[in-house]
């Protein structure tokens, strides 16, 4: 046993490998964002992108003269969209990874827990009933961060967010008297999803043709609603959710040993589970409110990362967040360029890429332990 590696060496090796995987994912994400900024109806060389970015931080730092138009396209159209896709990817993947760990169930995501149905209902509710109930307020405009925005989109986003987050709060109310056991939470989530689905169908049924179209577009999801305002609102929310959950990642690991062992280890399981759900749902609802329904990434990004980096949430959370952003940025870029000038809904591309990659991982045998 003389040449047995010490436990410190073994741990350091494992730690190093995982940090390397996270670093690679983050580098891929940055490259994907640059690629996304470059591609589109007008090709913008990466050197120009870097100049524009540098000049926007410190004016005049780069002497590379970039065409005003190019800078405009980049700054007003592409960058907000790329950042929105990245932030939504982070929030949804984070929510998926955390929900899967909190509930010890590989199938939960913001969708299975009814959050997406509730947010969709919220959006449809405002699209259909907003003009009737709120009248002229709905059609007015507002000033946010110095920009003029139409009130109807603000109200729709707000309503989607409120209902999305509310669905998880209802789960909390239903489950906390039953010590927040994971089966009660999952069942309540699924059932609440159906109830909001019924509401959504009702809204679609009574809506006018024009509103129906708006609802369908929202349900398809996409980065159409990208703007700097959206990015400015979502960035601090995403960052806060990420930091809070990363700080709790070790406690999240203890839940893998079962509720009883986690309790014995000093964790207040019921409180921890509910707090975690409310935190990640807050971020996911906020993102969905701007992007519409974006499925899959919350379920798949954590699983793909799990197979590569393992189940230690300290590493899984950052890895899944970066991978979620990567998947969404790449999918959205392909969606708007593959058959340009026509834009495809991002879901079509994402389900294809993510699905094929996931099947590849399973066939390759890394999925053997998926239990």
């Amino acid at each position: 046993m003389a040449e047995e590696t010490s436990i410190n060496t073994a741990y350091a090796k494992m730690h190093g490998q995982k940090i390397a995987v996270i670093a690679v994912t983050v580098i891929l994400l940055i490259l994907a964002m640059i690629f996304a900024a470059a591609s589109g109806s007008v090709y913008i060389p990466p050197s120009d992108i870097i100049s524009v970015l540098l000049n926007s931080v410190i004016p005049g730092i780069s002497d590379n003269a970039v065409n005003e138009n190019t800078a405009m396209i980049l700054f007003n159209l592409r960058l907000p969209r790329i950042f929105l896709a990245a932030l939504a990817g982070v929030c949804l993947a984070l929510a998926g990874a955390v929900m899967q760990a909190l509930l010890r169930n590989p199938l939960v995501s913001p969708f299975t827990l009814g959050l997406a149905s509730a947010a969709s209902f919220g959006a449809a509710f405002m699209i259909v009933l907003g003009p009737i109930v709120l009248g002229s307020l709905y059609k007015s405009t507002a000033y946010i961060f110095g920009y003029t925005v139409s009130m109807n989109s603000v109200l729709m986003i707000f309503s989607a967010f409120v209902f999305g987050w509310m669905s998880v709060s209802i789960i909390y109310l239903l489950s906390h008297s039953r010590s927040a056991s994971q089966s009660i939470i999952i069942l309540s989530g699924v059932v609440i999803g159906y109830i909001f689905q019924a509401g959504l169908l009702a809204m679609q049924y009574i809506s006018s043709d024009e509103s129906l179209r708006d609802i369908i577009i929202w349900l398809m999801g996409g980065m159409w609603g990208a703007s700097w305002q959206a990015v400015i609102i979502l960035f601090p929310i995403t960052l806060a959710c990420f930091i809070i959950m990363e700080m709790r990642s070790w406690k999240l690991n203890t839940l893998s040993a079962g509720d009883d062992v986690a309790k014995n280890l000093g964790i207040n399981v019921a409180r921890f589970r509910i707090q975690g759900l409310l935190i990640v749902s807050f971020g996911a609802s906020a993102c969905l409110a701007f992007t519409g329904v974006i499925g899959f990434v919350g379920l798949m990004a954590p699983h793909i990362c799990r197979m590569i980096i393992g189940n230690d949430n300290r590493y899984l959370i950052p890895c899944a967040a970066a991978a979620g952003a990567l998947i969404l940025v790449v999918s959205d870029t392909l969606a708007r360029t593959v058959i340009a000038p026509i834009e495809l809904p991002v879901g079509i591309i994402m389900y294809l890429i993510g699905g094929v990659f996931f099947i590849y991982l399973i066939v390759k045998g890394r999925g053997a332990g998926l239990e």
Partner: protein
Amino acid sequence: MKIDVMNLVHNYSTYKVLKDVSFSVDSGEVVSLLGPNGCGKSTTIKIISSLFKPVSGKIQIDGRSIDEIDPVDRAKLIGYVPQYFTYSSYTTVLETVLIGRTPYMSWSVSDEDLAAVDYALRSMNIRDLAERQINELSGGQRQRVFIARAIAQKPVFYLFDEPTSSLDLRYQIDTLTTMRDIIRRDNSGMIVALHDLNLALRYTDKVVLISNGEVYDAGRPADVLTPKAIFEVYGVKAEIIENDKGRFVLAYE
């Protein structure tokens, strides 16, 4: 240190599972809880582990009620090993055992944490499996990993809820021998729910025989496990056989 279990009463809706259970355990002792299925062994173990509160009665450690102890400090005193194990795949043995260090760490792992994991793995004789994935192991190896997790927790008292009952004889004996050695070496204590009376006779210092939610008798295994007690508690006839290897229970009817 000493655990005092004082007059525990508990019910599951209308079913009275514990009517009055009291006993005590000193550090350095291995104590077995015996009794038929449903007599309240598991409930007693879970109450001592603070997984839930009893309807009445209390648990004291060195005269202090466990309710008054902060959960994180309590986790350094009492380590619980469940009957059935839950784990996640894509996790190495090292990572799994490290979870036992939760009361001592919050994100980063110290040398002390790794030393405790190393000690736990060596104690359970699975040091060579440290970097293996948990789902690649056999059932018996996996059970050792989960016991190692409790050892890494460095509790003063171990509470085992029949964690060996589904395993083969060799493994049961190995586990109890190993645990008895650890208890002696670290001057810790152990309460283990058991079904096999012969294991209790051979590997434990004291037995608490529970019948219908009450302590039928407690004391040295040889004194408590008499044919009369076995008949009254389990409803089977038994003979005690003594030879040069020790005392054995032979149940026959």
